[in-house]
Every structure is written in C-alpha cells, then in structure tokens.
C-alpha cells in the first residue's frame, strides 16, 4: 500500500508495474472466482468487479500505510488493491477458518481490518459514514491518515451520502469519497434513478471539492487520488471523485445482465482498464511481452495456490461457533 509518488508525465516503471499487477490480480481473482462459484464452491452473493478494476487499483496505489478504506458490496477489488493476501480471500469465500473473517463474513463482508480495510458492506451506502468515522478517528488522534470510501452511483441517492459527506465537510476531514459510477444499480439505469447523472455535482452543492474522471484509466485515477490525498493532508479535505465505469457482466454471478446494451458494453470493453494498465507498462516503460507474460503467469499461479490453500483449510465447527456466540 505504500504510495509510489510519481510525476504525472513520467510514471516510474515501479508504479506502472504495481498498477498492472494489481489490476490483473483483481481480474484473475474475479474470473477464476466465478468458476469456483459455478462449481458450487462459493455460496451466497458474489458481485464481480470485472471492468471496474481501474478504480480500486488507481486509488489504492495512491494511499499510504496507516490510511483506511471502506468498501462496497462489490468489494473484492478494493481488498486486493489494498494488498490483501489472496489466499485468505479465497479461503473466506470458501467459508474457511483461515479466511479473513473465519468464514463468518463471506464476499459481502470481506475485510482486512488490521491493514485498515474496514470491509465490504451488504448495505448499499453504509460504507460512507463508516469511512467518515475512520477519518474522524484519525483527526482526533492527530494523525494525517486519509480514508477513502468507495461508493456507488446507487448509493448516491441514499441519505447516508448527504449526511456523511456533509459531516466530513464541516469537520474538514481527510476523507475522499470515490463514487464508482457504473451507471447501473442491478438492472436500473442511472437515468431512471436521478435526473442529474453527473454525480460529482452533489459534492459541489455542499461545498466539497469534486471531480469527475474516467474510472477505466487507472493511471489517471492514481494521479487524481494523489492530489486529493495531498490536499486532504494539507487540511483541504474532503474531496469527492466520481469515476465513470461500466460492469463487464451482470450485477452478480447469477445475473445474465441482458439489460446492458451491447454497444455500451463494447465501448467500455474497448477501454478495458487491464489493457490500459498493460499498455501503459509496455508503452511508457517499455516492458517486454515476455515480462508481461511472466507477471501474468505469476499471478495466475498465485491464485491457483490460493485455491489449494483454501481447499485444504478447515471450517470453524458448530461447537466453536457456539463458543464464539456465547459472548453475545
């Protein structure tokens, strides 16, 4: 999670590789995870981050150790970008004791508390007040830590959006709200949910510096987040970033997503964040195809290993769980 600072026009190889690795790791996790789901190894809800990887990747690369993130119901990408151990993530999805939440949480609650990832959330919009709270805690203990809450277009019509961003504003908190505007809430188009689809304007209306950006461009997201975090640490927070993006498939694994127009999908697939991260690495730093291949194989192998780890892990027993429950 250590931020790799870089001038806007001369990103380092290190940064570009880090960004590509993260984005690709998310892509593999989701693609392979869906296979595990289809095999019946994963139950419950699974909301893939496919197509949106540029946002978590760019944002998290810009943050520092000690910072916090809070996530959404579509939280695997944020967790990975934050540096989580893929082994423990797969174990969580496979409801194993070695998972981040001992198998009590699952996909919708995946978290990495010790590292400052406050977790995914099954309640749309709930991550915003929680993130503002983390930012408040940091301010109270005199830390310059920044908190990012990833939120969604859907959550922007929910009361928590207004209430918590307004609190962050009046308290000048080191808080960045990243709206992942993928333009759908399940099958509902954003145009059906609000007249003003430029969501960043809501930040402006309560005096919060607000930006709109192409969420499929991880490098641009990175640079904007660096700026935003710097401003926060200089006492000029909070900041709102609306990152436009699109899902590559339906809302969850079992949603065929038939309602998503093919031309829009094609448009966004032509701007695939993984391709852009890869291209940046190749074009700006001159990475060789063989190097790219090596990275990709390495990440694929890492996932395979994680599956093995998870499969070999045990589940918490009912008896152990009853003991845990006794504290309630």
């Amino acid at each position, binding site marked *: 999670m250590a931020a790799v600072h870089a001038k806007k026009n001369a990103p380092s190889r290190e940064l570009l590789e880090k960004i590509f690795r993260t984005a690709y790791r998310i892509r593999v996790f989701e693609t392979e995870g869906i296979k595990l789901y289809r095999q019946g190894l994963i*139950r*419950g*809800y699974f909301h893939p981050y496919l197509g949106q990887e540029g946002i978590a990747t760019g944002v998290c690369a810009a943050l520092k150790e000690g910072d916090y993130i809070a996530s959404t119901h579509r939280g695997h990408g944020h967790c990975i970008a934050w540096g989580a151990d893929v082994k423990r993530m797969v174990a969580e999805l496979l*409801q194993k004791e070695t998972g981040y*939440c001992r*198998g*009590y*949480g*699952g996909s*919708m*609650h995946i978290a990495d508390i010790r590292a400052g990832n406050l977790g995914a*959330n*099954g*309640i*749309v*919009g709930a991550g915003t007040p929680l993130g503002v709270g983390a930012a408040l805690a940091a301010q109270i203990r005199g830390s310059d830590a920044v908190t990012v809450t990833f939120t969604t277009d*859907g*959550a922007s*019509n*929910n*009361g928590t959006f207004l209430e918590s961003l307004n609190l962050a504003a009046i308290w000048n908190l080191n808080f960045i709200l990243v709206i992942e505007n993928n333009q759908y*809430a*399940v*099958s*509902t188009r954003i145009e*059906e*949910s*609000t007249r003003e689809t430029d969501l960043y304007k809501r930040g402006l209306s309560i005096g919060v510096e607000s930006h709109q950006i192409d969420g499929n461009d991880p490098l641009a997201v990175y640079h904007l987040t660096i700026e935003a975090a710097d401003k926060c640490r200089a006492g000029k927070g909070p900041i709102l970033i609306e990152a436009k993006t699109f899902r590559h498939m339906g809302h969850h694994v079992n949603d065929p997503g038939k*309602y998503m127009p093919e031309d829009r999908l094609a448009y966004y697939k032509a701007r695939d964040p993984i391709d852009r991260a890869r291209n940046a690495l190749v074009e700006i730093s001159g990475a060789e195809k063989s190097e790219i291949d090596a990275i990709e194989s390495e990440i694929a192998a890492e996932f395979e290993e994680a599956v093995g780890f998870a499969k070999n892990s045990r*589940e*918490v027993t*009912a008896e152990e*769980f*009853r003991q*845990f*429950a006794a504290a*309630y």
Partner: protein
Amino acid sequence: MREIMYREALREALDEEMQRDPNVFVIGEGIAERGGSYKVTEGLLAKYGPKRIRDTPIAEAGMIGVGVGAAIAGARPIVEILYVDFAMLGMDMIVNQAAKFRLMTGGEGRVPFVLRTQGGAGGGVAAQHSQSLEALFYHIPGLKVVMPSVPADAKGLLKYALRQDDPVMFLEHKHLYMTKGPVPGGEHIVEFGKADIKRAGKDVTIIAWSNMIPRSLEAAESLAAEGIEAEVVDPRTLVPLDEETILTSVAKTHRVVIVQEAVRRGGVASDIASIIQEKAFYELDAPIEIVAGLNVPIPFNLELEKASVPQKSDIIAAVKRSLYVPSYAMAAE
C-alpha cells in the same frame, strides 16, 4: 384444489387487488421490468403500467416515507423492501410516522400502507441479509404484523391487508417463495387475527410461523411415528394475535413449544410465552419451551448458518423435554 407457489399466490393477490382498486400501487427496487428479486411482481408492469408499478432508487427511508405519505393521502401503496434487514433504513418512517399517525391525529388520519419484505436465513447471504426481525415491528403499537407460511395464507392475508386502514408489515420468507400449496380459486381472503391449526394433535402444542411451520410439521410427523401427537398452531398474524386459539390448544395439551427462527432474546416467542403463563398458568404441566435462533448474527458459513437457526431435531428435542421423555428431560435447562 389447484396448487400454486407462494410467490404466485402473492402475485395473484396483487393482481386481483390492483384490478379491483385503482388506488393500489407498488413501488420497490427492480420490481417493474425485472419483476422483483423473487419474481413476485412479474407481469404486473405490462398489465398496470409504469404509473402503478414503479422502480425506485436505493432509498429505503425515502420510499417507505413516500409510501406512508401516499397512504395518508388516500392511496393504497405497497412498498417492497428487498430484505427486511434494509427496512432498518426506514425505521423512523415505520415507527414514528406510519405507526403513530392515527393516534397523533386523534384517530382522524389513517395509513392504509403495506410494506412487503422477506426475511430469514438460508443460502449463505450472511449477517445483513438473513435476519428475522418481526419482534421489532411487533413491539410498535400501530403496526399489524403478518407472517404467512403457505401460499393460501399468503394470498388471503395480502388481499385482506390491502383492504384495511392500518399499516401492515407483511413479512415473507425467502425460503418459501418456491414452495407449493393448495390455494382456492376465486376470491380468497384471510382475515387478520385468526390462527390456523396446521396439524391437529393432543399431546403438545407447537406454535410457529413463517418458515418454521414446514419445519415444525416435519418434526410433528417424526414425533407421530413415535406416538407423540403434536398440534401445530400457526398464528399467521402476530399482530393481532389470536390468543383464543392458542389458549384453547394449551388447555387441551398442557404442554407448549414455541418455535421461531429469530434469535431467542426478546423475540415474539417470549411474548407469547408470557401471555400463556399469565392466562393459562394452571394449565401448564411443563415449562414452555422456546426453540429459537442463537443470540448471534447469522454467519456466512453454511454449516454455521444452520447451527444458528432452529432445525427439526431441535424442535423434536424440545417437545420431548416438555413431555419429560427420559434422557431429554435431563437436557432441560
């Protein structure tokens, strides 16, 4: 009699009532084109148009509040909340507005509002999508609380709900939508406050509702094989509660097991137990047994999820404890 699914029965009720009364309309997330997550509203958009079947943004407090306001102004809204867990976002509108409006206006204002939602554990949807929260609404005077267990009740109670003037929390169960059962053709209405004896018996009274009815009936079948005849009473509506039917059954069996999926602490089962011990103290030959969920949020892991809510074996054990079947009696306390 024809057999249809619980969700079809609900759809029939909506369809018939929308046909009958132009003031009935439905709002919710993904209920129009998509037909709702459990397909209850499927086909209604085509039939009644976007004015009366409309999708909402993700704004539970807003949509519940708007439903309450529409009801106050004389419409008959049904607000569908995807999971009862999300109703927590609209609790102010439920508790402080819908439930209190009648009193606050001196009886003048009425709120013919129906909130349809579903609860219960199952399928690994974890802590925020698995709760059984009827006790929260049960405690708020002014709300009716309905929990149908079979398709016929689902239909008849929903139709009744849409014809009376107080706010109704209509709580379905995610596991019941695809279950089938006989539903009479033609107009079928089930009044509130009438318990249904889902199985007659003489040895013990099992009181249960919603998804605990099928489970209790399975337990009763197994017990019958051992010669124990359980009477299974389904209140169907928790508010109003049909105390009479319950007390009559208790007076016959003298032993009571109450089964709820919700957590043990502060659940509706406790309240029913408190009523029985108060009104039928001398009828009881054994402590009232409560079989309920563990006092803990529901975990994701499927085995642990199962361990968190009552299973058939838990019901059987409780019945045997209440009958002092040796070896079970030991386990009591």
